[in-house]
């Protein structure tokens, strides 16, 4: 079992990464008061555009960039609908999820079932000599490191920077933020676009790194899991990380358990990641006062400066 720990960790870190990108992006969006339920759709569009770009250019990073841009573009549609045109956020978000699934299938028609050759990863090898952590660090994809960077950046931005405070103000009390001169709509636009961009990167990670191929609906519900993570993590970035790795970790551990003959019905084991993640996050976030403190008060409520 000890020998399995390193490979389990490596695969877990990989499996949690798309959830981290998508969930941290959505976290920032929700902190600004915008509830975008279309993460799954934005991820799918990011995945297909990234795949098409990478398979035509042969470049992983161009693919990731294209996925980011595509996610942003889809989020822009949502932002125009809900922030400028004041459409209902829940309805628009659900529509976005469905639209993304259909649109990605349409765009990816000519690429369905295709796969990419495995791509060079170019991970740092400085630490390869360190026991236990060394082999893990060298095996990881650069995007995994970027997800850690994103975590650090989002945590710093939200809780240590002035602009983060303003963004949270827009999510807590847009009227107050507006009355002291902050452009609430613009802030919410930027936060929504950021969420879309990160969902696009999450999709790109799935279609380029995790399984280098395009398949309709290949995100397989990870967008919805990311949404749930944000809520169950009570809008705290560190808990999002914990939830994402827990989810990935339990998924992977049950594969290892199956392979070594431990375990009961595989169908029941497939439900474990969902159960474990929800139970743990609910337990650590069960303090009602803290939930109220962390949840953006104006989440999902439209704001118009003239009203």
């Amino acid at each position, binding site marked *: 079992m000890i020998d399995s720990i390193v490979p389990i960790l490596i695969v877990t870190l990989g499996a949690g990464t798309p959830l981290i990108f998508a969930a941290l992006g959505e976290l920032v969006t929700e902190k600004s008061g915008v509830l975008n339920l279309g993460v799954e759709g934005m991820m799918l569009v990011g995945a297909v555009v990234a795949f098409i770009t990478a398979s035509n250019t042969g470049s992983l990073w161009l693919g990731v960039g294209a996925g980011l841009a595509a996610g942003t573009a889809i989020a822009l549609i949502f932002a125009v609908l809900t922030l400028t045109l004041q459409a209902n956020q829940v309805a628009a978000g659900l529509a976005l999820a469905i639209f993304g699934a259909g649109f990605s299938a349409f765009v990816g028609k000519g690429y369905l079932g295709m796969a990419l050759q495995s791509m060079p990863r170019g991970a740092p090898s400085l630490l390869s000599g360190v026991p236990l952590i060394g082999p893990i660090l060298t095996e990881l994809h650069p995007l995994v490191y970027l997800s850690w960077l994103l975590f650090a950046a989002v945590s710093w931005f939200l809780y240590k920077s002035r602009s983060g405070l303003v963004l949270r103000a827009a999510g807590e009390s847009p009227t107050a933020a507006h009355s002291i001169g902050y452009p609430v709509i613009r802030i919410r636009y930027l936060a929504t676009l950021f969420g879309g961009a990160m969902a696009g990167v999450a999709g790109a990670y799935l279609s380029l790194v995790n399984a280098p191929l395009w398949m309709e609906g290949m995100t397989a519900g990870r967008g919805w899991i990311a949404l749930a993570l944000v809520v169950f993590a009570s809008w705290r970035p560190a808990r999002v990380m914990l939830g994402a790795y827990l989810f990935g970790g339990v*998924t992977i551990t049950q594969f290892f358990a199956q392979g070594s003959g431990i375990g009961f019905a595989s169908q029941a084991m497939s439900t474990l990641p969902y159960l474990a993640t929800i139970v743990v996050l609910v337990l650590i976030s069960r303090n009602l006062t803290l939930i109220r403190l962390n949840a953006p008060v104006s989440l999902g409520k439209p704001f118009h400066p003239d009203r």
Partner: protein
Amino acid sequence: MKIVTRREFLKSSGALGVAAAAGSVGDAFGQPPLMVGVVHQFPIGDVGWETQHSLATKAMEAAFPGKLKVTVVTDVQQAQDAERVFRDLAAQGHKLIIGTTFSQMAPMLKVARQLPNTTFECCAAINTLKNMGAYEARNYEATYLGGVLAGRMTKSNVLGWVGAFPIPQVVWRLDGFVLGARSVNPKVTCKVVWINTWSDPAKEKDAVSALISQGADVLAGSPNTPVQGVAAEERGAWSFGNCSDFSKYVKQKQLSGDLLDWSNAYIEAARDVMAGTWKSQSRWRGLGPSGYTKMAPYNSAIPADVLADVQKREKDIIAGKLHPFAGPIKDRDGKQRVAAGAVLPDAELRSINWAVEGVEGAFPKA
């Protein structure tokens, strides 16, 4: 061949219904072409299950130039929709309607009962009617050969299998694979991981990583995507593809694969319906010129003696001299399932739910 999606199809079928049947062109003898409908559950991709059916449609059209008028309907995901599509195709005058997946069996049975003058064929169906036949691949013959390759090529004596669902169609492929491997290398074991989905490539890849980390150096399984091979190649492991030939994506490390080739099923059905000699039957065929399964191109890295052995066994299987499920066969709990000198009967093979000796890992209780 005309490909329409379900939505376009339902939109146009009402208006065009009878016109399509009446407006068909005749061949030199004045006989109108046979209208054939093929219904896919998902869109047709570059490789995979739907692709193999699409290739069979093309082969059928090429076999009877000018004599067929084929309508292909794709993306009919729900059984209820399939029922409507079957009915509409029949109303438009399609005399032969081909279903491409097990989940279309129930709606097809329902429609076929009500439309006795239309001929139906359903892939992987376990029930037939007077006007509805079934076709299915004995692909365990090919996975047996894949197992022989794996058993000879493995260094670690551990094989890995990523299974979608533990249904008979997957279990007989797995058992065939392990029987083949252990026929040449009794030390071999095969670790199995079930991912309980047909369409989550990321999970597939994670399962491959888990198996390789546990020592597997030849990977095979049931998901119909190249992911497994690509992921294995990345880690330097061999793979045995399935469904389609993945060698254009898995350039170095694909040993071979079991391909589905339904051309014979389609061509024979169209031929017999046109000749008026079609009879309902449940056709279950493996390797060979009239079969439904083929080996993917062999990797050039396979040593000549191994290849010769595999090819000899392939001939023996086609000639009926070698049956992968010939006894003695024990299951993984040590219970004898097939006695020496006996062969597992088809009826038991069609519903197989036990793993042979050498299969390790979680397996549903038989």
